[in-house]
């Protein structure tokens, strides 16, 4: 048993080495000094407290969306519509903030209501994909993708139409909200402890939900064998929808955080690609909630670290995306190699 665990770890480490090797090759091919690139990524992410808090700013949405995706993944769903769910969360949050910003309600209450609306918005958008799947037979990958495009168009329409800035709408988004409607931040930093707290709270919640409850077991059963789960008495349609709604609510909360704690307005690409990145995290942790936080933190560090690459090295910051994607790819491939080896040795004995 112990030996097996070390073997797994060995394969995962070799995947990391291969991913670095591949990225290094790409850098060499583009005539960049790889050490410089890696050095700036590390410097850019942890060289100062400020930079580290920036990493945490990126960590919070990634953690939230990945926790939600853990639920949909466990239910056997490829919730590719997660990007749209983040977007709808952001839209709903912006809507409530706009609606209430001139009211006499306490700012704290307004923010809370707006974030709740964000969760509802994400859940609603997810349940659309869910309904298409469960009642329409449309694969969630395609339903979700279509809804992603629609969500993006909706954002653009709002920014350039009904919610445009005084004067003329622009790609820079809607008019920023006043400071009072920002999620409180540590002074001098962009990090909101409220946001971090929410992220930590939800990953712990999901951990216990998936590990110890009837709900979690049923979600897993639905994901592993829908037909058998139904025969055993699990109301499968309901649990599929619940998985979508829970995943969507957390994605919506991610969008709400983007609005209340990061951008303080609605911008065209409000999801910042966190949805797809979250899918990578969820794939990498392979259903184990315990690993979501460390992996999300690592990915967030790569994100922040690569931000200054265009300035210092004239490189596109998508290098972090390449590194993240290639890492997941090699982990998948090495896992396949490991299984093949165990199959072989198992067959021979």
């Amino acid at each position, binding site marked *: 048993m112990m030996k097996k665990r070390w073997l797994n770890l060995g394969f995962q480490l070799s995947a990391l080495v291969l991913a670095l090797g591949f990225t290094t090759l*790409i850098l060499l091919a583009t005539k960049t000094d790889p050490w410089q690139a890696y050095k700036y990524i590390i410097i850019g992410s942890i060289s100062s407290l400020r930079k580290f808090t920036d990493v945490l700013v990126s960590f919070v949405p990634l953690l939230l969306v990945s926790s939600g995706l853990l639920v949909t993944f466990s239910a056997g769903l490829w919730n590719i519509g997660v990007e749209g769910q983040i977007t709808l969360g952001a839209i709903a949050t912006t809507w409530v903030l706009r609606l209430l910003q001139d009211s006499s309600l306490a700012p704290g209450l307004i923010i809370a209501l707006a974030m709740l609306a964000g969760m509802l918005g994400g859940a609603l958008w997810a349940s659309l994909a869910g309904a298409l799947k469960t009642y*329409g*037979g*449309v694969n969630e990958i395609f339903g979700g993708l279509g809804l992603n495009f629609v969500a993006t168009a909706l954002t653009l329409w709002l920014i350039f139409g009904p919610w445009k800035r005084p004067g003329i709408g622009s790609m820079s988004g809607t008019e920023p909200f006043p400071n009072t409607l920002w999620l409180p931040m540590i002074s001098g930093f962009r990090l909101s402890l409220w946001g971090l707290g929410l992220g930590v709270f939800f990953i712990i919640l999901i951990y216990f939900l998936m590990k110890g409850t009837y709900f979690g077991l049923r979600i897993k059963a639905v994901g592993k064998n829908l037909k058998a789960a139904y025969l055993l008495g699990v109301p499968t349609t309901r649990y599929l929808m619940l998985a979508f709604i829970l995943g969507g609510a957390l994605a919506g909360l991610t969008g709400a955080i983007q609005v209340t704690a990061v951008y303080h307005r609605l911008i065209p690409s409000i999801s910042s690609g966190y949805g797809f990145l979250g899918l990578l995290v969820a794939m990498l942790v392979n259903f184990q909630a315990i690993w979501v936080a460390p992996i999300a933190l690592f990915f967030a560090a790569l994100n922040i670290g690569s931000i200054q690459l265009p300035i210092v090295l004239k490189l596109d910051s998508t290098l972090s995306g390449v590194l993240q994607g290639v890492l997941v790819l090699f982990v*998948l491939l090495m896992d396949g190699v490991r299984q093949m080896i165990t199959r072989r040795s198992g067959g021979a004995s």
Partner: protein
Amino acid sequence: MTNEAILLGLAGVLTTAAPLIFAVVGETISERGGVINLSINGTVLLTAMGGFAVSVSTGSLLWGFVAGMVIGALVALIVAFGSVTLKQNQVAIGFVLALVCRDLAYFIGNPYMGLEGLRLPSLDIPLLGDIPIIGTLFFNHDLMTYLSYLIIPAAWVWIFRTRPGLVLQGIGEKPAAAFVRGSNVRRLRYLYTVLGGAIIGLSGPIYSLSVKAGWKGTISGLDGLGWIALAITIFGGWNPIRAALGVYLFAFLQWLGLVLQPSLPGVPSQVLQVAPFPLMIMTLLLVNIGNTEWVTRTLAVLPAPLRRFFNRLLRAMRASPPAALGTPFESE
């Protein structure tokens, strides 16, 4: 709008459809063999960038298209290795590749952004091109558009009428039976996945060297087209002709959106631009809804003639995938 403008617009639909035709036919071939190549969205971007970069560097259009095919084939090779040899989840491998290829395209393509490049020249076909209306519509295009007409029947004949095509259907339908009949299932799945990838790889250069000439990074407007190609493959029921009709319908609707926009000032442009997506969802809904339990339950209550009518209707629209799509093959 004048008749002339409409005619030119419709002719333009055929050109803008060409890259998607290649993508959809390539994907259809791959999936017929039992392998879903979900990387297609990234492949389109990476081959668009790669084809453009190579043609700029070599000064040759031909090498640009060759580069596209090679890149498409290499990405497909990873999909094949991951799913056929390592038996990993095809959706997972493909999805990750879709993201990696997209980011790679933006990263490597950074220095090529906005450069002036070559553009595929228009090639009027003599005689045919002079026929009124038909000439303008079909025969005043570039080479790749003509090839896009040809690849549709070619793929159809290959899949449904040739000996190797029957085997291709066989390995996607029931690999064990194909194996018994002497097919090397794994090698063929590699072959067709890579071949399909190479065909998909043509779509990128058609964009960057013709339809949307140039490479503009994230604002190239190519992100998302690969996902659409995947959806149309399903809509096409794994038949190249039906899939091609889907592509033309999609391209037509996009054009219609552009044309109608000035005459509908109340409707924001963004709405018309995404019109094909809800439509895509609707068509997938029509194709699949006949398989759902609640529909069969509801139909059971209807009086017999009405029930038969709906059953026939749903059956006509339904498309069923190759039975072994997405599953690895184990010979004993």
